[in-house]
């Protein structure tokens, strides 16, 4: 300030004004941020936090560590080549007696059973039959007598692998992978390797629904974009009404229509086309039909807004330059609709990937998508680690596609701005 005063009157008024403006702008920015802040904090608590917690559960592995602390400590120095030493057996016996008193055996048994089928029985039978801490030096013999599984090396490597605090076990399981005894990542045994098939199924159902939506949605969007506004607004109701109708109502409607004594079967029978009712629901067909119905507006609306922005002058120009209608359509019109096709398809595909309610209500056992298994492992079998790992894979796929979608839509906005 004093410098400014010394250099002259002109500078003394100029610098503070600039600074004042800058300060005013900064205050404005801080105020703006303060308005956004409550929502950010709220979402941290009700959305981001819970999802981060779920992701943590996909790698969290502290159950065995908490129930069998001495065993885990004794196994820390074990090389895994031979059976562990007497000290580990004694530690295990102590841990089991303590856990039996605390009632926590089941927690460790459940976790170990995921890794080695039958471990629950090994642990519970040992807990039941171990009367008191074995005499020093006899722990190995005592436990081996109660359950011969304690003489197997794999029983012990299973405990060591589950010693936590974090594990890749659930994430590997979600991809049908597991670790071999020497630590290499290998394919999981066929009876546990079911998730890749479910991911492929989820992908295929979503893809079929996306393609169906595109085939059905394109002509409708074209019609709506071409008709004069009065008529297209009226027809738009046919798209918006289902869009606003409850998902449950629409799913229920399809059950009523497609069931064996439903409207569709009755009509076909009445027309003499079929004798026996067709099986139209509780199978893949029903899932695809109901999901296409639910997601079709998400295809039509982006396609419509893209097509609406295409000037008819381009087609007229093509025609005046001698292009046959089909050529003009394929080479002039269609390429301009591609951003809308991309946005609509990605949107439908992203939404379809996470579908749960519709397949759960109109699908059979072989049509359940990945969300069904996430829900099943969360509420029914309480295998939260696996539920979270499957959720993490689904979330990753969704976010990657959403990123592509964001780039696509952003690009459209930019070109839209240039065109105007």
């Amino acid at each position, binding site marked *: 300030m004093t410098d400014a005063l010394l250099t002259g009157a002109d500078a003394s008024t100029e610098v503070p004004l600039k600074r004042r403006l800058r300060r005013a702008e900064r205050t404005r920015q801080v105020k703006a941020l303060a308005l956004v802040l409550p929502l950010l904090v709220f979402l941290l608590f009700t959305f981001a936090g819970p999802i981060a917690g779920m992701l943590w559960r996909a790698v969290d592995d502290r159950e065995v560590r908490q129930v069998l602390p001495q065993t885990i400590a004794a196994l820390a120095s074990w090389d895994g080549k031979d059976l562990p030493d007497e000290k580990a057996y004694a530690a295990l016996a102590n841990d089991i007696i303590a856990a039996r008193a605390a009632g926590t055996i089941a927690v460790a048994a459940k976790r170990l059973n995921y890794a080695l089928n039958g471990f629950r029985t090994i642990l519970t039978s040992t807990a039941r039959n171990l009367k008191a801490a074995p005499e020093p030096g006899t722990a190995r013999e005592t436990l081996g007598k109660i359950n011969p599984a304690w003489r197997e090396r794999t029983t012990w490597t299973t405990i060591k692998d589950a010693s936590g605090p974090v594990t890749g076990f659930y994430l590997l399981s979600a991809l049908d992978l597991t670790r071999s005894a020497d630590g290499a990542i290998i394919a999981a045994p066929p009876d546990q390797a079911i998730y890749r098939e479910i991911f492929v199924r989820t992908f295929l159902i979503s893809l079929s629904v996306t393609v169906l939506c595109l085939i059905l949605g394109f002509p409708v969007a074209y019609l709506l974009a071409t008709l004069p506004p009065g008529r297209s607004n009226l027809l738009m109701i046919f798209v918006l009404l289902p869009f606003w109708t409850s998902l449950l109502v629409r799913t229920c409607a399809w059950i009523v229509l497609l069931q064996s004594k439903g409207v569709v079967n009755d009509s076909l029978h009445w027309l003499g086309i079929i004798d026996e009712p067709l099986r139209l629901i509780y199978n893949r067909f029903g899932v695809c039909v109901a999901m296409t119905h639910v997601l079709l507006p998400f295809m039509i609306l982006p396609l419509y807004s893209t097509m609406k922005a295409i000037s008819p002058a381009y087609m007229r120009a093509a025609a005046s330059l001698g292009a046959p209608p089909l050529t003009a359509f394929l080479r002039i019109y269609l390429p301009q609709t591609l951003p809308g096709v991309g946005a609509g398809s990605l949107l439908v595909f992203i939404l379809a990937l996470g579908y749960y309610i519709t397949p759960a209500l109109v699908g059979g056992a072989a049509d359940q998508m990945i969300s069904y298994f996430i829900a099943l492992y969360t509420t029914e079998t309480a295998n939260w680690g696996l539920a979270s790992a499957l*959720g993490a894979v689904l979330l990753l796929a969704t976010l990657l596609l959403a990123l592509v979608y964001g780039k696509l839509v952003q690009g459209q906005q930019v070109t839209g701005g240039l065109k105007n």
Partner: protein
Amino acid sequence: MSDNSSLRTPSQRIAWTATIVISTLVFIFLIAPILAIMPLSFSSGSYLTYPLPGLSLRWYDDFINSPRWMNSLKNSMIIGTASTALSMVLGTLAALGLAQWKSRFKPLVLAFVLSPVVVPGVITAVGLYFFFAPIGLTGSYLGLILAHTALATPFVVITVGATLQSFDTNLARAAASLGASPLEAFRRVILPLILPGLASGALFAFATSFDEVVIVLFMAGPEQRTLPREMFSGIRENISPTITAAAVILTTVSVILLATLEGLRRRNERLKGGSA
């Protein structure tokens, strides 16, 4: 389609006819299921088949006299209204802030704010189930209201944000230069102009909560079951015509919401057309 001047050749006319035919079939596909379910709710019989044996209001009677269904309707209203109110406050503030905020982090913050729409319902539900259970928010109204607010707020931010984008900021400056305090300028100049946008946002928020079922499935106790949740059990266990009565009630609410929204849009267009 004589007004369509570009249709000159026969092949173009065929293509246009095909577009109309296919579109008509798709419109039937979109609307028919919703229309087909409605008359069944007025059936006097207890089977969900046509032809109807006779007309009656017994299933509506059943709905109104069932504590389970009426309780679920009440719950949907409570949770929908409360989460709409909360998301309106949070969403409008955020939209106002985002409209003024200039930063290279803005796209990132916007993506975060909008992400509840994209993330699959099951993932949000499982995360909330783990997160809310230890602090006693599962099986409570508050937990469901907070969860539905998180899902509904992005729609408020989008709708109000779009209205603010078309808002002429000179009006706010004019108000300030004429001596209005920021609060007064907001109340008397900004608010009346963005009110239709706010109303649309509120409708979207309410519809989001009113239709949500996955989170309710995970988090609601028997006391907090909403209408869609009750329908989910109904469809799973056995579909009685009472469900179709519930469906008609839900659809009526949707139509009212849609009609209000369309009315707001038209009014907005008229206002814009008038000022131009």
